[in-house]
């Protein structure tokens, strides 16, 4: 198994982790809507995961860039740009005072990210299998 195989195996695992993070976010948001959690706890909890998620994703993209996986890199670059923009404008953290006003937006964002990670998960899986096949043949 060559470098490409290892890289995509790692990406598959990362995508799975990111996928679960998003599922967790969405579950927390619906908990908030159902009043199982109060906004302060929710924001404290979720804010711990915001930056790690972004960093993990950015790291993955960096790996693609360094290993010359251009298609995979281009796939991920827009999201990195979006995240960086959010951090620059300082609204990447969830704000307990505003959360109910912005909840629908947050949910939508989480769903879109979930879909994105899902698609990229299967793409990485496919690339990993390709790399494995080409490695063995």
């Amino acid at each position, binding site marked *: 198994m060559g470098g490409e195989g290892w890289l995509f195996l790692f990406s598959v695992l990362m995508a799975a982790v990111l996928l679960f993070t998003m599922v967790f976010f969405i579950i927390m948001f619906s908990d908030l809507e159902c009043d199982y959690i109060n906004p302060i706890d929710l924001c404290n909890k979720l804010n711990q995961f915001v930056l790690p998620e972004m960093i993990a994703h950015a790291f993955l993209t960096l790996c693609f860039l360094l290993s010359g996986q251009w298609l995979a890199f281009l796939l991920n670059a827009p999201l990195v740009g979006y995240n960086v923009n959010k951090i620059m404008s300082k609204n990447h953290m969830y*704000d307990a005072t505003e959360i*109910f006003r912005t909840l629908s937006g947050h949910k939508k964002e989480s769903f879109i990210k979930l879909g994105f990670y899902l698609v990229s998960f299967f793409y990485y899986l496919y690339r990993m299998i390709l790399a494995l096949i080409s490695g063995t043949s």
Partner: protein
Amino acid sequence: MGEQLPAGWEARWDQQNQAYIYTEQSTGQQQWEVPTQPSFPSQDQSSAPPPPAAAPSGKAGRRQYPTAQLQSMYTAQPGSFEYQNQGQQPQQPQHQQQQPAYGDASLSSAAPSFFTPGMAGGDAGAGAQGGAAYPQQPMQQPQGGQFQQYGGGAPVDQMSNQFNQMNMAGGAGGYTGGAPGAGGFEQKQLHAINTINLIGMQPDVRGLEAPPPPYLIPQSASVTQSPYNQPDPSYQRCTLTTMPATQSLLNKSKLPLALVMAPYRSVREADGDMPVPVVEDNVIARCRRCRAYINPFVTFIEGGNRWKCCLCGLSNEVPQLFDWDQAEGKPADRWARKELNHSVVEFIAPTEYMVRPPQPPVYAFVIDVSQAAVQSGMVATAAQTILENLGNLPNADNRTKVAFIGVSTSLHFFSLPPGATEASMLVVSDLTDVFLPKPVDLLVNLTESRTAIESFLARLPEMFSDSFTVGNALGSALQAAHQLIGKIGGKIIALTASLPTLGEGALKARDDPKLLGTSKESSLLTSASSFYKSFAIECSKAQVAVDMFLFSATYTDVASLSCLPRYTAGQTYLYPGFNASRPEDAIKFGTEFGKVLSQPLGLEAVIRVRASRGIRMSAFHGNFFIRSTDLLALPVVPLDQSYVIELQLEDDLKGPVVVLQTAILHTTCYGERRIRVITQAMPVTDTVGELYGSADQVAIATYLANKAVEKSMNGSLDDARNVVTNALSSMLSVYKNQVTSSAGASAQLAIPDNLKLLPLLACGLVKHVGLREGASIPPDLRSYAQCLLTTLPSQSLISYIHPRFYSLHNMPPDAGTIGEHGVILPPTLNLTSERLERHGLFLIEDSQNIFLWVGHEAVPRLVQDVFDLPSYADLVGGKFTLPVLDNPFNQRVNAIVAKTRELRRGVYRPHLYVVKSDAEPALRSWALSLLIEDRMDGMGSYAQYLTTVKGKVNG
């Protein structure tokens, strides 16, 4: 429609509305409702006993009017503008002639004869029916009661009283169309008659005092049919007094649906306010499923053993104590229970409603003692005011606790042990990791440590009189105060006269004048530091509220500091350029601060609004923290603060009536857990026309103010103004296309009568200092104005948006004298400088400031009489205290100013400014900017605003 009509009625098919219209032949009165009563000639109706069906009704019986008078009112109403103009225009020439007299209006003789028909009609009608239907309750039924408060509590002169009455008579009559005992939905009739054209008409500003359209619920909806079964609009009002049946209908109508409420409203005996009835016996009947409180709109089923919840329809058991008085040991009358008779009641909550034993009221004063604060005299005035009000602090059971922290570059704690006569000061200069220097005696019982506190307050100003420290560690001091009282909860009152520059939450002077007037200006209106938000959340969790009193002469970043009061349900007060050596400043601050201190508090409160199935609360505006989707947390509920809650329909509404119930659970300052419940019932409709006929312009304006402020923080000020204008124009366009069904462009701008002042209020809103276009408004003033726009109750908010304008030099002879309802105010004028005369004396007030405008040709006698100065030239503009002189005119002006100051609920004591018409350009243009019907730099007049709106409606 083949049924037999009662005698004297005729049915006719109306092509346009696709419905039968019923005409009473003897009077020509028309209505949509199928008549149930034979026709009465109108003169009989006022003397005859009311029709039997009307007798048990709380509202329908009240609202009927002899139909002939109704007709005469309709014909009279459009003409009333002319009356008004005729009544006032002749004054001008007259006054130029009789210059020195400057005095008495020509209105007195002419006015009554103009209004006699309306007045006589209204009086006779109301009186006769009041007597017949409710002999025992002469004027506390919802209709009359509201009028009593609006027109009567705020006495205007006789003419405007009559005018109000006429308005009301017209409006009320229009709603029911005199349908006796029907209690149905007849608003259509109002639309058919009361479409008004806005273009070319001068708005009738007196209509702002009118009560909202009535809630036309069927009589059978209320079990007791008590006259108090709907809340006074000052407690709660809805933008629509009829609920749309579906969300798509609401979307189609473009009308906003929101509740405007001030549940913890002050009770002013002088205005005839009724104290909130208290259910003393701990019997709280609630629905098992939706947790709604029992209210006048539930129905009793199964022979009265169970009650059916009016919100969710579940049947619940009636508590046995409803029919059995345990204290007296005899059967009780359930129909006399307060919760079944009053829409606003308070329950005394048992221990299940407490998370912990009722907390005592706790006050922590954080006082800025830096050089700026000491020099402005703020410290001395504040200490003096606290000292004077120690006895007024809510302290019924001697549990109240107080703490004082002085803050400059370090924190000064004061140890006030019980029994001691002297306070000792402890200084902490570590600002990053705040700690309390002493575990006890910093937060002390007011009664036990009274002597120490008094001697401390007396000495406080001189303790720091030679302070030269510049810098303010407000954030750290607030954290210290939070540590002190966080375990109990309570109120932090922060008084600061300089920008917090040290420690936590340090701020920078970021008011770059280059940003003003650009789209980036809105960044100055939002918080610069996240500290004030995160600290607010901590406070809210610990049940601590923060009140901010800001005094700085320079930039204080109100936008950031006001975050704390916003999320902890406090209030921000701004005293720009405060200087205690000016008595006006000291009195204003002292009065307002004193009122804040002596207010009763509702501690540890939560507000929840419940509504019939299908209605959802979708957004909340006001000062509180939203703790869950429908629960508002308020560590301390201040008196007279307004909240706006937007509603959405998730499902179609089935029943004919929906019920909205606001419950506010709080601990009173004397240690009782209480639930104040406000229940409101509304009919449901499925036509756009009825929605328009039932729209409440004051509530809509309040809603728009909140919406616009929200938009200005998230978007730009431009967006905020567009929110207002677009909302208005889309409403008018729907009204034009769907209700008056005129297609295509038109030169008219049609509006229903009950919304006729909404364009004026919208115009006032976009020109308001909080939202106005322009690069000259300091961000502090803007932020503060926005705080007020979102917290003032409707009563004050309307005059804040649309100031009142009186002409004093030619006021009617009774204005300024004591009338039946207190001091009589002169007639209000339209807000246009056309009314200003060069020799005149005018008063403009917007509930925060009063301007006395003196024309430059004012005769010396006028100046002498009012200001005790020899001539106009000696008069200096600016803050002013009117001297009390021994001449009737001065006393009347003084009485009017005093009346204006106490006209509305709330702690505010407006400043009085004297404005000379040819000096002090800044002050002059400030006063002129309140005349919102005029053009002002960059912004069009009211007429131009209407043209813009018309363009959008037609375009």
